[in-house]
């Protein structure tokens, strides 16, 4: 199925917020093509080994369900300690670069 293009890699990079260089776009296109070509075997595996049976996907090997916690407060972090780790802070808030307009 693959044959991933430079443009597709550029799209993936945008979706994943990576400011890839031109060289990287070309390089990753080649590598992802090889990797995807190899991992695409999973569909074939399902057909060959599944032998027409219904094979539900397993997103988690754990057989657990209904793990919850009671609605009871736990201690919070000290905001000063948390904000001391932030690249920028102001007025006890995280300072972030301008967010492009929604309106």
């Amino acid at each position, binding site marked *: 199925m693959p044959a991933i293009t430079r443009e597709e890699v550029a799209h993936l990079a945008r979706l994943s917020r990576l400011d890839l260089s031109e060289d990287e776009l070309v390089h990753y296109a080649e590598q992802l093509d090889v990797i995807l070509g190899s991992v695409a075997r999973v569909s074939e595996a399902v057909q060959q080994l599944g032998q027409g049976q219904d094979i539900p996907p397993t997103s988690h090997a754990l057989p657990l369900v209904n793990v919850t916690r009671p609605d009871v407060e736990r201690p919070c972090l000290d905001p000063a300690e*948390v904000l001391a780790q932030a690249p920028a802070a102001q007025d006890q808030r995280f300072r972030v670069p301008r967010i492009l307009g929604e309106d």
Partner: protein
Amino acid sequence: MSTSTVNLPSYEDALASYDPVMGLEVHVELGTATKMFCGCPTGFGADPNTQTCPTCLGLPGSLPVVNATAIESAIRIGLALNCDIAEWCRFARKNYFYPDMPKNFQTSQYDEPIAFNGYLDVEAAGRTWRIEIERAHMEEDTGKSTHVGGATGRIHGAEYSLVDYNRAGIPLIEIVTKPITGTGEHAPEVAKAYVAELRELIKALGVSEARMELGQMRCDANVSLRPHGREKFGTRSETKNVNSLRSVERAVAFEIRRHAAVLDAGDTVVQETRHFHENDGTTSPGRVKEEAEDYRYFPEPDLVPVAPAREWVQELRGTLPELPGARRKRLQAEWGVTDHDMQSILNAGAVDLIVETVSLGAAADQARKWWMGELARRANEAEVDLGALPITPAQVAEVVALTAAGKLNDKLARQVIEGVLAGEGSPQDVVAKRGLAVVSDDGALLAAIDEAVAAFPDAAEKVRGGNQGPAGQLIGAVMKATRGQADAARVRELLLKRLSS
């Protein structure tokens, strides 16, 4: 850029050619003590970032654990909306980058919501509309950004933003309707009535205060138009985060007109998100994305599935309170009022006030009379909600009780209410301070009667002769003499007795 209303067809003209189709998505913040996936408190108005922990800040290594009460609330909402409750469902990750969102994915539910396939009956435009519910699912809220620089508080032109994550991770229930068709010209009204009814239901369940002005409940309104007689839906717009009932109605009405203008001009409606502007009732497009959003949903691997036991769901069904619709029907029957009167009571926001007044001992018709009469008139004058008047159901019940006991007549009761509203204290206080009690001392009344008889001997003679007509004149004189504080019925009784002997 806001679309101006100048070039839009009138609402009536728009409806003349098209049928509107709506889809309403309502987010409700649950009133749990702690957040959806961590033990941070949810209280409103705390200092920024004081209600945060590794989990709701998305710190590396942190993990979510589901709040049991949030699940319970979601199921109760689902049941109240006549939904099926999933036997097994999961959380999923909705992936997109936004600084408000600490993990850059929202933990939500995707194709496996906890509740689905329900309905809510809504009264609007004199009839009942069954709004079908597609799903109700659980998710988490985001943090809150304050935009600094540029136009005040607006995102556009801001130099930078400040983020407070206190709200990040507060549990949300998102309730999504199926496409609402067939409402025609009533679409905006039905939309408003639906959100209002949903809010009542949420409040009745006690799962949230659902205060729209605080953002505890907000509505995304999808609107599309199709020419009359056409089966296929048109392209929709989604107006985000509409946060009052009135705005829901206005936003839908505006979008109907805007879509009609686009279609009338032979253009195609763009599928986009839009923002509603309270000031002029218009909407404007959200940021145009270069490429289609692809949220790459997948099952949240840090959580395990939710599989509510059927017995538990049954048990929760048993805990549902009387729901607003059923309650209204019951009260209407109990009070013996017409559909029209009931609608007036609802519109005036008087249901709970009357119920409470009755619960404090007042007769229903009396409670209704005062709230929907004198008090409604005064609220109207003051341009405030009935509930905002400075008088309590207990005080109204007291006035009713004083009247029933013959200690006040209607006229005096109105003066007492005026005093209470003026801050003169309880009804008893006002009666005492203003000296408003009914003169119930027969001796005093008889003295006044004798004076009246002496003053109007002709009238008295006629009454003695069996003609009761002129009695009114005599009673009026007595009332005047007692400055209206006599019980007119008692005066008549005493007068007739006096002139018959």
